[in-house]
């Protein structure tokens, strides 16, 4: 009812205006209408700022000083892409928002279909987020991944999203449909040219049927100058097990926003992750977990290690809709601040409209436990190494809960590398 004060357009918003006009000129009429709708939704809100409650701790309007030019179609060398490292996988490569078959696995895999989608994704998002709308308006390409009902896919499905170039922006759209009874491990990585400054905005829509068993690992290892925004919308059928893990290491600024909705009863969802931050990195993980139906269980466990001048933001909201009785939702956020210039903002929320539920959330913030440190040092371990051991132990607890062997191994290796833990041992 109160018209918000008119805010002047920022330089980034002006650049986006031009980019949208150029995008619109190149698309078909049908596609253009959908883009326009999304664009209007974005324009109504503008780039989010701290007065937008969901973005309170990540003032994108200030941090996104410009919108880089839309990245063009390129084909980088195969060895530029890291993905899941040494694992044997089925690779789907997306460069600058576009599917690149030459860099992807080419033999067919039973139960899996990958099709290139044209531009806009008609995503039925559980969100009205401005940055998700921006993706829909500017998306450069996309793919649809289908996993057949009852298919068990042994090899990890690896989705590598690579932004090629500097001072460019990429908008990727992905739709994933997972049939009932399917079983798979999906490892998606977000990466780009090391040292390059770029912006990546990804929108992924996942629909999972009944009785499926899915593990989904996200590796965010963008360049240290990148700005990364990912919107993930998840819908889960009945009696499904869905486990998601975010490994967040890269980007100067990153925001992962997850919108999860339970559509069927008896489903378990685990959302977990670790944030490893240093220098002046800013990482934001924001969750909306909507228990729309009864008898579902959700676990949201995140841990952050924040050093130097870095800042970790965690916002999680568990919503229990009227009638969603017997809901069990537990959220826990633990953070370690390793320096006096680091910062943590946590906002674990509960929004409950049903009475027969068990919901809890907790949050702890602090430094390494002095007693534990003393214990290790009393046994002859130098302080620096003792600290690393304790940080590794702190993060490993979260990693192990993901309960997928290949992922746990990969995550522990990446965590050790970040900590330079192996160098210490050999010294």
């Amino acid at each position, binding site marked *: 009812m109160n018209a918000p004060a008119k805010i002047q357009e920022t330089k980034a918003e002006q650049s986006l205006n031009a980019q949208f006009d150029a995008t619109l000129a190149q698309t078909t009429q049908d596609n253009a209408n959908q883009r326009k709708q999304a664009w209007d939704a974005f324009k109504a809100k503008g780039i989010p700022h701290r007065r937008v409650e969901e973005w309170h701790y990540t003032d994108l309007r200030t941090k996104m000083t410009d919108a880089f030019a839309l990245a063009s179609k390129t084909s980088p060398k195969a060895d530029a892409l890291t993905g899941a490292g040494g694992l044997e996988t089925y690779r789907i490569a997306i460069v600058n928002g576009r599917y690149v078959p030459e860099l992807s696995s080419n033999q067919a895999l039973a139960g899996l279909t990958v099709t290139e989608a044209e531009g806009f994704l008609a995503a039925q998002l559980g969100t009205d987020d401005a940055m998700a709308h921006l993706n829909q308006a500017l998306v450069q390409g996309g793919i649809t991944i289908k996993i057949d009902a009852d298919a068990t896919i042994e090899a990890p499905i690896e989705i590598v999203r690579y932004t090629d170039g500097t001072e460019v922006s990429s908008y990727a759209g992905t739709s994933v449909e997972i049939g009932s009874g399917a079983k798979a491990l999906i490892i998606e990585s977000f990466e780009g040219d090391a040292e390059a400054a770029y912006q990546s905005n990804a929108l992924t829509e996942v629909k999972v049927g009944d009785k499926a068993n899915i593990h989904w690992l996200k590796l965010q290892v963008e360049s240290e100058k990148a700005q990364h925004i990912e919107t993930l919308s998840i819908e889960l059928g009945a009696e499904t097990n869905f486990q998601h893990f975010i490994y967040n290491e890269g980007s100067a600024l990153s925001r992962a926003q997850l919108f999860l909705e339970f559509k069927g009863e008896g489903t378990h969802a685990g959302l977990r992750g670790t944030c490893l931050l240093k220098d002046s990195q800013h990482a934001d993980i924001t969750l909306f977990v909507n228990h729309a139906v009864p008898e579902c269980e959700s676990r949201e466990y995140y841990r952050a290690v924040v050093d130097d001048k870095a800042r970790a933001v965690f916002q999680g909201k568990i919503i229990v809709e009227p009638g969603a009785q017997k809901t069990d939702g537990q959220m826990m956020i633990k953070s370690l601040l390793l320096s*006096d210039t680091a910062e943590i903002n946590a906002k674990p929320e509960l929004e409950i409209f049903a009475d027969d539920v068990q919901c809890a959330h*907790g*949050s702890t913030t602090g430094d390494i436990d002095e007693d534990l440190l003393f214990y290790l040092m009393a046994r002859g371990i130098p302080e620096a190494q003792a600290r690393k051991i304790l940080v590794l132990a702190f993060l490993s607890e979260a990693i192990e809960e993901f309960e997928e062997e290949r992922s746990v191994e990969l995550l522990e290796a990446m965590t050790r590398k970040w900590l330079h833990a192996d160098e210490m041992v050999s010294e």
Partner: protein
Amino acid sequence: MDAKLASGGISSLENDGRATWARVEYPKIDFEDLHYYAAPKNTEGPKSLDEVDPELLETYKKLGIPLSEQEILAGVAPENRVAVDAVFDSVSVATTFKEELAKAGVIFCPISEAVREHPELVQKYLGSVVPVSDNFYATLNSAVFSDGSFVYVPPGVRCPMELSTYFRINEKNTGQFERTLIIADKGSYVSYLEGCTAPQRDENQLHAAVVELVALEDAEIKYSTVQNWYPGDSEGKGGIYNFVTKRGDCREKNSKISWTQVETGSAITWKYPSCILRGDNSQGEFYSIAISNGHQQIDSGTKMIHLGKNTASRIISKGISAGVSQNTYRGQVSAHRKASNARNFTQCDSLLIGDKCGAHTVPYIESKNSSAVFEHEATTSKISDDQMFYCQARGLDEEEAVALIVNGFVRDVIQQLPMEFAVEAQKLISISLEGSVG
């Protein structure tokens, strides 16, 4: 007496101070249609307590707040004595025990009197905790407040009795904008309690008070609230909008401010009694019981702002929702760069009675200091069938059983209230939950 706001105070009333983040819904408030000043009905103003409307005294008695000194002298033990300042509508009508307090050097009087008698204190401290431009309702209050309570406890004095203010809104269409200022000088202690009621009215009434507490070195202030404003009828019609700004400033080292609140009334309660822990080693506490029934809405909690070294805070919040009410705890705990060794423990428990109500928890935890340790936990549950069965098997009816279980649930907070009000608060809780079961 209709009042137009001075244009200097508030430039625009187009935006009625609504926050996008608060979980409260209400129709637009017409600030032009509000009465900014109302005096109690006896236009002369009561000269003694005998002249006060007997209906008001009755309400008073029900609340268990002894207003007349005789009553106390007649029977109640001396340690139970309470000095009361009663504010009806916009005017302070009676302040008891003034002489005895004056002997100890404690100043307890209507703020209108303090402005005349102690201008140096008022000038020094008024607006120093809640600045005029702090938020919409604080600005409004600053522009139009007419009375309230003032307390000054001199250095080293332990206030000999509980101080209390009793607020009541009588007039139709009235906004009550009282202002409370409490200053505890070095090494002093004061315990202060406010009680609030309002009679039944069809229209919504606005209560936009500002409370400022200042604790200097080694001082302690304990501020308790038992709020029982009219919550509106069973259809959600009428009731008080309780939009209050309460803030305490632990200005110097080793000071302590403790807020205890029992919120049972009001159509909408929207307030966050806060502590600014500025002095080193200062402590802040917040104990809250918020009960919502019928169509009530509550969005309440606290802010603990750790600025000094070795500061500690503790938050215990118990929310109970019944009927079709919405009950939100919203609290902020922040440690600034220099707040080394800051400690916070927060516990928020919500209890749901019935499946039409909502219970929400929104904590904001912000730490900029690695030696700060913040712990937060929250749970939401309902009264279990086992608990009900146990009580009912022992002959309690359903309502009694609920009251008993709820009283157990909130015990941690009740214990923080001064003794004589703890009993009253327990009664209030039982009354508030009437009709919530069966």
